[in-house]
């Protein structure tokens, strides 16, 4: 059974918490207050005054904030890469990869981050992390270093799920240099039939 079905099947079991009975009195009092409250325009005017004060403050600090922003960006990047290096479980590593991908989404590829990702691709044995790294690397299809590492990984990888992901990736990149690692996969007796099939299809496509 998939995790998805397990959760759906146990949906009602999630409703196992009860609200404290003490809150009923609080609610009654609040209901009375809310339903018999004073005029709304007065509240709106007060709120508008607070908003205008807040807006002034925001304008004043915006300039200083902008100045600090760049330094913070570098600090964030370093912290994210450190978190990735320090992650000692598969789930914390996966989460660190996603954090990097999210927080640095709109930026150019960063050498430090790419190296951290390449390291996972080469050494890490966890399939989910590798798949997440491949997704992240595919955002830079024109980067030669990225393409090289994906092809190298295709030649060295033995985990079927990651092999399939890499085959799909080099197919997207239409990378002719993938032919050699693809042949290696096809000729390897230990490769799964599904992986061999995908590799053969891609090889045929590249040979066209």
């Amino acid at each position, binding site marked *: *059974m*998939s*995790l*998805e079905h*397990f*959760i*759906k099947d*146990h*949906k009602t*079991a*999630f*409703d*196992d*918490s*009860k*609200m*404290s009975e003490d*809150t*009923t009195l*609080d*609610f*009654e009092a*609040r*209901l009375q207050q*809310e*339903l018999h409250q004073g005029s709304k325009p007065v509240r709106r005017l007060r709120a508008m005054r607070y908003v205008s004060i807040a807006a002034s403050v925001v304008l004043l600090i915006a300039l200083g904030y902008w100045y600090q922003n760049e330094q913070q960006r570098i600090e964030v990047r370093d912290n994210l890469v450190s978190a990735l290096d320090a992650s000692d*479980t*598969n*789930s914390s590593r*996966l*989460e660190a990869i*996603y954090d990097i991908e*999210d*927080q640095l*989404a*709109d930026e150019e590829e960063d050498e430090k981050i790419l190296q951290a990702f390449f390291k996972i691709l080469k050494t890490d044995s966890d*399939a*989910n992390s590798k*798949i*997440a790294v491949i*997704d992240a690397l*595919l*955002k830079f299809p024109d980067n030669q270093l990225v393409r090289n590492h994906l092809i190298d990984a295709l030649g060295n990888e033995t985990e079927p*799920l990651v092999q*399939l*992901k890499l085959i*799909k990736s080099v197919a997207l990149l239409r990378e002719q240099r993938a032919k050699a690692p693809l042949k290696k996969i096809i000729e390897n007796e230990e490769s799964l039939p599904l992986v061999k099939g995908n590799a053969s299809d891609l090889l045929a496509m590249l040979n066209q």
Partner: protein
Amino acid sequence: MQVYQMYKDMLYNVSLRIIINQQDAQDMVHDAFIKAFQNITKLENDLNLGPWLKRIVVNCSLDFLRKKKKLSWLQESYELQQDEEVLTEELDNTSLKFEDVKKAIDALKDKYRIIIVLYLIEDYSHKEIAQQLGLKESTVRNQYVRGKRLLKQQLQNKITV
């Protein structure tokens, strides 16, 4: 007050799954009831009262997180490539315990937990979640796949420990 007594626990559980904090979840239930009472004329069919209240408490809870800036990840979310779902091996159903799954969901970051909860437990579609959070549907799908992967990873760790 009869309606309150009948639905408060259901709404409390919905809110608690979204904002985790018990006190805040209780406040959200109260906010939701007040809003519901003020807008009761908008309810077209009494039979829909439960789902209608649920929607209101979900809205209140998400607004609360927005005000607390706990939904700042929405600005970080962006259009990703369609992330095809690559499943690792199915979890062993016999060793899967409901309590572990619940704890693992609660331990997820907001950006994954909220989408997982709304989709799998509250029966929102990806499209509805996207509208609710102001995201693209493809981004919601992607975050959902990621969240599920993280959840599986956590549970696999638990099983192998």
